């Protein structure tokens, strides 16, 4: 008898329904899986066989064909295990039938997701959150997931979600046992990110701290330049503690990616604080940007709606830096696999640090630089102009004097800064409501025209800055966006000349390059 069980698969973050068809016929015992399965699916024959036996069902040798429809898309992972096992049980009339051995229609009301262990337990799978969202959008009413995935599933409303622990559980469900769907709960956002350091432990560095505050408030890309030991890495590590709270939409977007990638915190099930990713410069290109045989997302997508911190920027391979240009511009990254390409969101705030020269001490007040001018130039040119063009804030971070380091001063804590950042971000969220822009940094040129109007005094000071400080034209929109954020932090609707003047301070590379 032919059995059909519904399951679900992902292409990037988009889900689509897969029908698992199982047929039993005469012939030499074998199990064939067709419909472009990958190796993990082919291996599921063995898992399914053991799981069925160990759950106490009959698994006498037969000739079995499993088809994953639609047959033209490549399918991967162990996520179809449960559906295949159920298919086999239904087609051998061990489940999903009534007393008169006619198949129950209710079987096809459900979509099944889950990996099986040899003992018949249903194990956790990746990508449940995006599949639930996609399934809901496509009108699926009931979906069965592994109990281990319950934490990420509970935030999805308007779809009945059933959590099962074992194959027997699932069989009971389709045989008509009454079960209640899992309880939904609200997304609770905010709270301090774990792992960040508090700004109050950073002595001095007032200008740098202020720049970080502006960057966090407006989501601006920022680069810190300075000699070794100046505190660049330390400052960046403080950033998680001052990032603004996520909106619910942002949290779900980021969770979808983490869910697919399998890096979601199981106990929590949702990303509620902005991710802060700091991949090392030796990290492979695929790990950074995504890819591989199954076109998985990479670090730059993990940092979606959060921070991507690239410490020692010039050490990263040039090819990686070039790839960053697309996500910095469009907020998405295209990951290619054999036959087609998948897009993942990658709307991150880039935080980078670098030394000013190979030895690190060019321009330092305390050390002598030993590099030749051509070495310095070569070092700087490792970072291409187009990449620098997309960085709004440049700051010099120089060593703090020993006296200041040991001085007891009452500096602000991260919580104080975060309160201001949150207020400024709330203004932006309200301003950009109904668009897919969340922060000042991502303003379109149309929005810049509308929201970054300068008064005469502001125009004058910007003009003077260009003449006097030799700034390049590309700095223009960057300064406007930053001035907008400074005004938001200041709680002002209009950008004043004071805001513009401050924004001009954060273009040190523009002044240096000339």
């Amino acid at each position: 008898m032919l059995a059909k069980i519904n399951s679900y698969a992902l292409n990037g973050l988009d889900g689509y329904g897969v029908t698992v068809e199982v047929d039993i016929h005469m012939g030499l015992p074998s199990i064939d899986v067709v419909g472009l399965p990958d190796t993990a699916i082919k291996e599921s024959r063995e898992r399914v066989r053991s799981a069925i036996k160990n759950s106490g069902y009959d698994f006498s040798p037969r000739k079995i064909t499993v088809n994953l429809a639609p047959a033209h898309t490549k399918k991967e992972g162990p996520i179809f295990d449960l559906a295949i096992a159920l298919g086999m049980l239904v087609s051998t009339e061990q489940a999903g039938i009534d007393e008169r051995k006619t198949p129950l229609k209710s079987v096809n009301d459900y979509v099944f997701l889950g990996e099986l262990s040899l003992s018949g337990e249903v194990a956790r799978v990746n990508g449940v959150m995006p599949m639930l969202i996609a399934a809901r959008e496509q009108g699926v009413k009931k979906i069965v997931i592994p109990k281990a995935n319950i934490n990420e599933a509970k935030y999805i409303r308007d779809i009945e979600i059933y959590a099962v622990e074992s194959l027997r559980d699932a069989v009971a469900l389709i045989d008509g046992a009454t079960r209640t769907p899992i309880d939904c709960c609200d997304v609770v956002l905010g709270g301090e990110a774990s792992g960040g350091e508090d700004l109050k432990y950073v002595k001095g560095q007032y200008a740098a701290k202020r720049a970080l505050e502006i960057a966090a408030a407006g989501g601006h890309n920022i680069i810190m330049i300075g000699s070794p030991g100046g505190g660049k890495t330390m400052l960046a590590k403080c950033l998680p503690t001052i990032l603004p709270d996520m909106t619910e939409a942002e949290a779900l977007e980021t969770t979808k990616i983490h869910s697919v990638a399998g890096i979601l915190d199981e106990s929590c099930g949702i990303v509620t604080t902005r991710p802060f990713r700091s991949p090392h410069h030796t990290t492979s290109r695929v790990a950074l940007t995504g890819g591989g045989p199954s076109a998985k997302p990479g670090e730059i997508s993990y940092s979606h709606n959060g921070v991507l911190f690239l410490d020692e920027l010039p050490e990263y391979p040039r090819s990686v830096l070039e790839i960053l240009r697309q996500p910095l511009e469009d907020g998405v990254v295209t990951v290619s696999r054999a036959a087609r390409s998948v897009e993942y969101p990658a709307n991150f705030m880039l935080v980078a640090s670098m030394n000013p020269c190979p030895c690190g001490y060019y321009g330092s007040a305390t050390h002598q630089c030993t590099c030749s001018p051509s070495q310095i130039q070569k070092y700087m040119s490792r970072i291409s102009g187009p990449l620098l063009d997309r960085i709004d804030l440049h700051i010099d971070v120089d060593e703090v004097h020993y006296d200041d380091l040991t001085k007891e001063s009452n500096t602000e804590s991260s919580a104080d800064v975060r309160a201001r950042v949150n207020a400024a971000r709330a203004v932006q969220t309200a301003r950009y409501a109904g668009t897919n822009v969340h922060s000042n940094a991502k303003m379109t040129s149309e929005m810049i025209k509308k929201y970054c109007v300068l008064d005469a005094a502001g125009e004058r000071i910007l003009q003077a800055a260009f003449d006097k400080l030799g700034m390049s034209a590309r700095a223009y929109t960057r300064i406007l966006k930053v001035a907008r954020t400074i005004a938001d932090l200041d709680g002002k609707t209009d950008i004043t000349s004071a805001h513009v003047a401050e924004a001009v301070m954060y273009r040190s590379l523009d002044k240096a390059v000339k």
Partner: protein
Amino acid sequence: MVLSDLYLWLSYSHIPTRKINMLLEKMSPSQLWDSFDDDEIKYSLDDKTFGLLKRTRNKEYIDRAKYYLESNNIKYVTRADPIYPSALAQKEVDPPPVLYYKGDLSILMQPCLAVVGTRKASQYGRYVTSRTVEELASAFTIVSGLATGIDGYAHRAALAAGGKTVAVLGSGLFHASPTSNLALFDEICQNGLALSEYTPDTHATEYTFPQRNRIISGLCSGVLVVEASYKSGSLITANCALDQGRDVFAVPGDIDKIRSQGTNNLIKHGAIAVTCADDIFDYYSVKNKKEQPKTVALDFAEQSVLDALNGGEKSFDALVDVCGMTVPELNTALSALLIYGLVHEKSKNLYTVS
């Protein structure tokens, strides 16, 4: 053969200028050309020099060279020409037989001042160069060597102030370097003067740069060294200046910085210390034609930052503590002062009044 063609012959023979001038002490160029086949001359020259001269002693060859220069828009002036810079025609300078140039030679008629220094300039050196040269350029033609660092800043500041500037190359005009200054080179060819004693196709070597330094100092009445370490090439220029009887000026620097050791040492040995353009104007009794900047009305915050800096240079953090302002307030005030040009960043994160 006209005399200028004979000088061109000497230049194209690629014999070191020093040797040419030694020869010319004994005989005129025409004597050398005419009696070249005499044994007397042959025995008075070493083989290499003789070979080089003989190879190029060919009227056709020289005509071809002239045609090549003309078709490539390279102008030249020989010692036979009345417009040859008189300052160079001095034994101590070791005047080259020919100067190849692009641009306007007449700007050498104005009083000339060389401004040189390290290629690895600090922000201090950069600022001092720009500020001083902007004023000096109102009365002097600024001569330098097109290198990165101080040289480049000097050229740029002179151009920005609408003044005249001369780049003396250590290579032929077709091989100007460094690449980062090529745009500057083009601008100098348009609005100033680029010159070289080397034929246009000559590549620079480690010997050509020290050689051309004598021309930089030779063209000028004085040499201003802004920043130099002990081994800096700009000290060679200063030495040439002393040998040629030119004045040497130096900007004093931090005694702990390697980049200042050369300049401070010059001052110790008698160079004239320069802390502003007026020092040089006064020395030459020339008038500073640059008008003083207009006064700007400062608001309270700006004024208090300026007052704090009048008490000595300060870092950003120190200013926050001294002025008692919030960081955004200070950023705004400081930015305005920087834009007005009343304050500048002396080195990274260290601010001082202009």
